[in-house]
């Protein structure tokens, strides 16, 4: 029987599939549901009000403290994901969330479609990546993951900057783009904010290449994320160098049980090809 357990910066994942940030995970209940459907780890994302409520005490703060207590009941490591406008805001939020019950913290400086954040705020340069990572590192005692954008010239340099700033792992990658779809009858962009990140099949080859490049440039583990819909895609990511794989759009394509399906397919692939651990496949695409 193949061993598909993963040790990610001390986090014990029963399998390498991780619910990616920005998908489903808005509450303890929603991430629990992903775990029940096979996720080895889950990323819970603060956006908008959640984030503001953490930042600025208001009547909601009690709800939020309750929301993120006793996360062990979720049944898999829960990673708290935050985003901010600048190093100061990132650090302030990270300090608050570090006190909560999360197993690790992910900082996202790569959102492609929110003005004031991520790539739209110029956060995807090596200098700013290092500055933000350092500021957060100073406030965080838990494993720190940095989620990177694929929309850059040299992602390996940015990964290096995150590692230098004190990151324990790299989540690669965020969505491509931003992209736009225009409805030609009403002549209006379709998405709510007019633009949005591109994910799924279109993203996967880019994500695999990013993971491949990052694996060569840093020593810290990588959560390979972007278009992983099947076990074969997960193996591809692992061969590029990923320790775990993030799944987001797969929830849309294959339903919430995508985690269980992907895990089953990884196991089947390993059996057919005589691999007994994930380690034996990791980074194998780099061998001459």
């Amino acid at each position, binding site marked *: 029987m193949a061993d598909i357990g993963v040790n990610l910066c001390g986090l014990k994942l029963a399998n390498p599939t991780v619910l990616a940030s920005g*998908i*489903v995970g808005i*509450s*303890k*209940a929603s991430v629990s*549901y992903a775990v029940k459907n096979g996720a080895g780890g889950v990323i819970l994302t603060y956006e908008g009000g*959640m984030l503001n409520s953490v930042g600025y005490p208001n*009547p909601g703060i009690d709800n939020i403290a309750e929301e993120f207590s006793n996360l062990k009941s979720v049944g898999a490591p829960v990673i708290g994901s935050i985003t901010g406008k600048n190093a100061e805001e990132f650090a302030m939020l990270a300090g608050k969330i570090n006190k909560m019950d999360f197993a690790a913290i992910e900082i996202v400086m790569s959102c492609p479609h929110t003005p004031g954040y991520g790539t739209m705020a110029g956060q995807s340069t090596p200098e700013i990546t290092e500055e933000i990572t350092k500021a957060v590192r100073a406030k965080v005692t838990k494993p720190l993951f940095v989620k990177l954008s694929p929309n850059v010239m040299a992602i390996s340099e940015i990964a290096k900057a995150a590692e230098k700033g004190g990151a324990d792992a790299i989540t690669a990658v965020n969505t491509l783009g931003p992209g736009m779809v225009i409805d030609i*009858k009403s002549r209006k962009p379709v998405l709510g904010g007019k633009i949005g990140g591109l994910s799924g099949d279109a993203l996967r080859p880019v994500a695999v290449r990013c993971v491949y490049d990052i694996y060569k440039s840093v020593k810290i583990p990588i959560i390979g994320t972007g278009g992983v819909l099947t076990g074969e895609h997960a193996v591809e990511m692992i061969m590029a160098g990923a320790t775990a794989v993030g799944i987001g759009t797969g*929830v849309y394509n294959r339903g919430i049980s995508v985690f269980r399906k992907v895990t089953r397919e990884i196991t089947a692939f390993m059996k057919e090809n005589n691999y007994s651990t994930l380690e034996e496949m990791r980074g194998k695409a780099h061998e001459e």
Partner: protein
Amino acid sequence: MKNEMPVTVPIKKVIDEANGIKSVILPYRLNAKPGQFAMIWLPGVDLKPVGVSYQDESSFGITVSAVGAWSKKICEMKAGELLGVMGPYGKAFKLEGKNIVLIGGGYGAASLMMLAERALKEETNATMIIGARSSDCLIYRERVKQLGLKTIFTTDDGSFGEKGFTTDVLQKILKEEKADKVFAVGPELMEKRVAEICLENNVPCEISIERYMKCGFGVCGACSVDDEGKRVCVEGTVFSGEEALKIREFGKYHRDGSALKKEFGGKK
């Protein structure tokens, strides 16, 4: 895999249903089952989930109460103007039994009309209860007459039909007649009361739960309910009364677009 982009079509017809409530008929073959919903895109404004209230071979309709920016704009629209359609999404009602009761509170009756029409076609004995604050907010008064659907109207102020709540009528019906199944859509506190009454009377029921949604197809997480995390858009919106009563937040609170909890009944 469904196409996740809206298909834009011109409004075929607008129906004035009641004070601040309109129906919009769209020339689009949606093929929804009773209880399912569509995501309706108002170009340049927003995308929202709406129950299907009318459907035939070539078109379907939604019934909208003017409450927010999106719904107010929809209620001002005229024939020929464009709306985008995605769907159908969600679980459908299961029509079972010889005698059924349907309860629509406010514009909740909208999501029950397809089921009522099917019941009439299948010669199920259906009784509809439609309730509202006052007579000017009651929808489908003409429509149910034309359909020949046995309907009891209630108003909180007694300005039309029976004075009181839909749940009062339900209790009376369950005491006096035999009902095999109850279906309810309306304010969540009404739905919870229906689920409790049905449990006490040992009658199966199905209700449709409303939650804030961004996507409608299970990806955004906005409609995940505590504690189990079921997504209302995929695992619902139709739940059995038993399932609904197991949802901790049912009748207590819901989450807004920023995932913050809001209590039902006006608090917080």
